[in-house]
């Protein structure tokens, strides 16, 4: 039967497309790392001698990657549900300021850490309320809070100072730096391992959790989700809260790494997060996307960014990264188009 062979053909091509969709990100990672490892750093005065892929460089990359790594998974789930949060950079900045203020005023690590996470949850909840309750378009709602949260962070810092840091009679406690810099395991700091732990939890949530499946259903076909008795509003609200908490963890990691609470420390994070998640194969329209692949996407972006710093003159970097992403996004788009039989 001709129609039967046609069906078979379709399933073969969609099988190949599925394979590409599922694994291409790892090939990209390998390719990027391989390219970078070819670079000989001897010519660059700024850096250590030898290969790009030396131990120190790798540790460095992973240390500065902690903020984006901790956000990527949560951001993926939110995008899978068909929603977006442009305010994560501002949430990061505001929570970084809050964390630094708590620390500099003498609060111990654990309560300061937990209170900052709570602040992130509240900021996420505000986004959730704007989007779910007040029905404001996600892009607009989170652009509003992008501005609001940043405004609050700047107000908190005040007085012509650019950030919360030691000085004027107040001193950052000694532990402040440790979370983001001090190697606790395999010479990597706690901030990195928290990002790994969060990602692992979110992978389980995505594979075995109600929230993961309902996020996919909400993003894939909201009407079907509602008709199946799923409270899509609650699903989306929860996801915004989780993204808020993840952004707070990113804020803590960044401020700890830099030893200060900078209200602008998260600027541009929303773009990085979107790029990372798209690179990981998440559909902008929702329904599709994996936490683990976004994590890998984040590693790629960071390797590229740091790699660029060492090899390419500064003024080329943005352009090169943009071009790399364009290629990745286009491939991803083609692959996911082919996977669909309409």
């Amino acid at each position, binding site marked *: 039967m001709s129609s039967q062979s046609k069906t078979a053909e379709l399933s073969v091509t969609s099988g190949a497309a599925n394979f590409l969709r599922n694994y291409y990100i790892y090939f990209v990672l390998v390719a990027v790392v391989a390219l970078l490892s070819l670079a000989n750093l001897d010519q660059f005065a700024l850096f250590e001698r030898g290969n790009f892929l030396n131990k120190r460089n790798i540790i460095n990359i992973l240390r500065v990657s902690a903020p984006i790594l901790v956000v990527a998974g949560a951001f993926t789930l939110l995008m899978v549900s068909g929603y977006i949060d442009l305010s994560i950079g501002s949430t990061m900045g505001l929570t970084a300021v809050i964390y630094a203020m708590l620390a500099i005023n003498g609060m111990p690590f654990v309560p300061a850490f937990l209170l900052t996470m709570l602040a992130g949850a509240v900021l996420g909840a505000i986004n959730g309320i704007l989007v779910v309750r007040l029905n404001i378009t996600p892009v607009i709602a989170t652009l509003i809070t992008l501005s609001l949260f940043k405004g609050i962070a700047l107000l908190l810092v005040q007085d012509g100072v650019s950030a919360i840091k030691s000085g004027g009679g107040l001193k950052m406690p000694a532990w402040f730096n440790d979370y983001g810099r001090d190697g606790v395991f395999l010479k990597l700091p706690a901030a990195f391992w928290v990002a790994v732990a969060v990602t692992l939890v979110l992978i389980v949530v995505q594979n*075995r959790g109600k929230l993961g499946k309902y996020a996919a259903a909400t993003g894939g076909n909201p009407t*079907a989700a509602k008709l199946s008795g799923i409270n899509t509003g609650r699903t989306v609200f929860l996801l915004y809260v989780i993204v808020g908490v993840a952004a707070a963890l990113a804020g803590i990691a960044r401020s700890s790494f830099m030893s200060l609470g900078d209200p602008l420390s998260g600027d541009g994070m929303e773009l990085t997060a979107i790029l990372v998640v798209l690179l990981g194969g998440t559909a902008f329209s929702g329904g599709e996307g994996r936490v683990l692949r976004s994590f890998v996407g984040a590693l790629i972006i960071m390797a590229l960014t740091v790699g660029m710093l060492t090899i390419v003159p500064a003024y080329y970097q943005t352009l090169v990264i943009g071009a790399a992403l364009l290629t990745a996004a286009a491939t991803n788009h083609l692959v996911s188009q082919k996977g669909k039989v309409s």
Partner: protein
Amino acid sequence: MTEEQKISVLSVDGLTKDYPGVRAVDNVTFSIQNSVVHCLVGENGAGKSTLVKMLTGALAPTAGAMTVNGKAYVPTSPQEARDGGIATLFQELHVVDELTVLENLTLGMEKSRFGFFVKSDLEDRVTQTLATIEPAIDPAARVSTLSVAQKQIVEIARAASSGANIIIMDEPTAALSEREVARLFTVIRRLRENNVTVIYISHKLDEIFELGDTVTVMRDGKHITTCPLSDVDGRAELIELMIGRTVFQSYSPRGKIGDKVVLKAEGLNTKLLKDVSFDIKEGEIIGFYGLVGAGKTEVARALFGADTFDGKVIFHGKPGGKTPKEAIAQGIALVPEERRTQGLFTSLTIRENVPVMNLPRVTQNGVFKAEDVRAAAEEFVTQLGIATSSIEKHTEKLSGGNQQKVVLAKCLFSQADLLLLDEPTRGVDVGAKTEIYEIIKDLANEGNAVAVFSSELEEVLGICDRVFLMFDGCLQEEIENGPNVDIAHILNVVTGGQDEDAR
């Protein structure tokens, strides 16, 4: 099945639904037994959809009661309807493409603890249900890789495993090929064997006779009869039950049809249309009559260059425009099916809407000549009798009939001499309807050619000189309008009767 097993699973008693000014469902009483395929038939506007909406919880009845599985039934959502025992297969598919078949089947019914899924017999149960009705679908497949027909079966399996014992199917074969229809029918029969009652709604009467055990006929919101299909003596009797002895507004020939062919279409083919050929003469009103999905809108859109197609359109001796822009420039105008979304700029005023199809007429070097725009709007408000306080009124604030007149004004302003009117009086009150018919006749009398695409037989027979009957993308028959048209025959043709005769 033995006689004592027959129990009533659904009964409605005195069910009534009033809309402002209209009684859509009028004191309907009937009951349906278990394990049957029960068909619901009636013309467009007979009240079927309203009845179904009440059964699915989308609408609350004005009066009357429903009983399902022996219990009083007052659903307020599809969810509650399903808990009560009624699941519905809507015309649009409600599956999540990105999930697997199994994930779709269990969606919203999963057992979980602390937000994580726990093992239960649910997965086995739904897999079993799916295997019973269609073993060929792999539960692990992603739904995006399935065909429309397979997705539909996934939805049926979900309905069946949700615990509902009554499944409503609204025109389920509309998007299916012949082979897929046969497969769907097998599925429906298996459901019936498994003690599920199917309420089947279709315009295609041969499907009704092939599949149905019992039938309920509705007409003008009223319940006409509920009986076994074996008691109905073929299509003719069913059609008679559906239309009754309706007297249509009689057509009077205008007798001014020219000889000059304005437009000739040859062998139009699209995804839906099959070899559609016809012509329109100067001063003539032709009608395309068929049920929803028969391909009327597709013909209109093809002529207007809005959709691509294979075949030839000759307009005034030249090939027809390939885009709406070209078609308008040649003198073709379309009044689209959806007035609010396709026909009007509802946030703009009458004055701003009227000239949009032919801006060069009222601009100079790209700048509006304000006086000309105003004059044009005033002229059409008077000519078409648009009831408005001013030409500055926003069109969203006008009534349906007046909105439609603004759409007509837009087309007339483009100086078209072929007007394509897709459902020209949908959602328009009776008074405005008559006025629009007069406008259409005047336009034809002035020598314009008019094509009316309508799913209201009364409309088509009221104004058209020639009528093309459409079914399933084909022009089945061309009839000259006149006092002796055979309405039963027309209904037979547009419900697929001619196909059956040909077999």
